[in-house]
């Protein structure tokens, strides 16, 4: 029972990081309709950028802030150089470009860093775990959870309250009507990419603190796909809940399915943890393709 609780809690906390990245993904999809398959690499870039700053002896919170700033710059550049010329092109073309982008970014990372696993040294968070009764949780999880929650809250407030947040949502709903009120669609797309880079950057940084930094962060970042499919592709609350669900499911799969043995034989050869989210995604697509909160057109009654 303790193990179950522990798996749930840490899964929830890692899930909050996925939620953050998924939110960035959803934003691009909502506002510009671009299905971004390079999200894992955005996460990867964030991890390496903040690692670099941290290694330059910049205090961790400040390193995160710099990562956010770099994220904005990279987001604006990516949108301007790669995505804007494609406005009005077929969806498939745009998706293929994001696939190309993902290889491009990964190549850049290999160019500047090695493929070896890098670790934040000295560790950012104390390695002393926290005990809640019989449940033991690493501090890195708790702090990541808090950081992810804060950033999620900031984004949600941004969307609900600020002028640009509302403009982004309006463009997602009806681009033409937004344009008639002077909302610049190009600016909205650029803002969406900037925010996605920011969210992914922080997500990558937190994941890097938990697992160490190597290419696998990119695969963790790609977990946004099952997360957003569960949540419904264009729902912000859906992305958040979907991310958390994926975190929990992944942990439970790792905790129970991986070591599962029947009559002395291992049922799974290992690695269930990594593929389980995609199994869930496939089932979700078969059963409920709109996800939990995806937009089916609002029908007035």
């Amino acid at each position, binding site marked *: 029972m303790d193990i179950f609780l522990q798996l749930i809690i840490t899964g929830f906390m890692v899930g909050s990081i996925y939620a953050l990245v998924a939110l960035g993904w959803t934003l691009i999809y909502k506002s510009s309709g671009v299905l971004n398959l390079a999200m894992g690499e955005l996460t990867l870039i964030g991890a390496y950028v903040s690692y670099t700053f941290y290694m330059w002896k910049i205090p961790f919170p400040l390193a995160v802030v710099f990562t956010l700033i770099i994220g904005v710059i990279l987001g604006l550049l990516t949108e301007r150089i790669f995505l804007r010329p494609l406005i009005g092109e077929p969806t498939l073309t745009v998706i293929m470009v994001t696939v190309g982008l993902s290889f491009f970014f990964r190549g850049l990372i290999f160019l500047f860093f090695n493929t070896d696993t890098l670790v934040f040294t000295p560790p950012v968070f104390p390695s002393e775990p926290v005990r809640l009764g019989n449940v033991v949780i690493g501090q890195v999880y708790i702090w990541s959870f808090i950081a992810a929650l804060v950033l999620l809250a900031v984004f949600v407030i941004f969307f609900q309250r600020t*002028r640009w947040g509302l403009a982004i949502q309006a463009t997602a709903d*009806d681009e033409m009507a937004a344009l008639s*009120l002077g*909302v610049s669609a190009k600016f909205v797309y650029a803002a969406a990419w900037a925010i996605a880079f920011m969210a992914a950057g922080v997500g990558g940084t937190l994941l890097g603190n938990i697992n160490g930094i190597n290419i696998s962060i990119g695969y963790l970042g790609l977990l946004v796909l099952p997360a957003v499919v569960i949540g419904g592709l264009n729902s912000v609350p859906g992305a958040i809940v979907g991310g958390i669900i994926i975190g929990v499911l992944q942990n439970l799969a790792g905790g129970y399915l991986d070591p599962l043995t029947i009559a002395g034989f291992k049922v799974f050869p290992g690695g269930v943890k990594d593929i389980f989210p995609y199994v869930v995604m496939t089932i979700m697509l078969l059963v409920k393709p709109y996800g939990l909160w995806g937009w089916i057109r609002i029908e007035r009654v």
Partner: protein
Amino acid sequence: MDTNGSILKLNNIEVMYHEVILVLKGVSLQVPAQSIVAVLGANGAGKSTTLKAISGLLKHEDGAVTDGSIEFMGQRIDRKHAEEIARAGIVQVIEGRRVFEHLTVEQNLIVGAHLRGGATVKPGLERVYHYFPRLTQIRHRLAGFCSGGEQQMMVMGRALMASPKLLLLDEPSMGLAPLLIKEIFTIITQLNQREQLPILVVEQNAKLALTVASYAYVLETGRVVMDGNADQLRDNQDIKEFYLGLTDLGTRKSFRDVKHYKRRKRWLT
């Protein structure tokens, strides 16, 4: 109509879609300051296109003004982007009640003030709720779930939030119940009189449009075939028959009356 004092002038504009389809074949019209001008016409006559040409939304649909010019308060705007034109003060209410479904009514209105900055939001909202008191009660409701009339008020209020200098209304009566249409048109008149807001309204409901407008243009297949003061047009035989659905009192329409075709043809040439 005298050319002085007009805030909007369309000089013989041609509009083409996808570089091949000629939709407007030389349309000229003017909107005098502080007045309501109506554009009438059947489906496909080019009414909406005319409005989109003015507001710049045309470029978004792969259309372009290929000839002629559009002047707004003395400046040429036909080459400008929709965003710049909105900034200059022309706000179009697109046909079909295009609300932001997943935002609340009030959030919809706030998006309207996007170009005007945060300080205008509060007085703007008060003004909108003053003209559309119905919106006050549903301000926190999701726009997608509001009724057709409420949505029409919302999109008009949203345009008002942008403090326009010229309002373009595309078919405000479309798909609404007669009583609601009456209410909406009363508000249009109020906006024009109290706010001194010039309005260019496109309507299929000619009868209604001619009661609120002071001047009207009749568009057919991309050309202005007739224009004049609203009361003149109301008395015009052709308008009566083709747009108001009236024939001479007491006489029945007969298929023998081939003059119908002749008259119509005269317009087309």
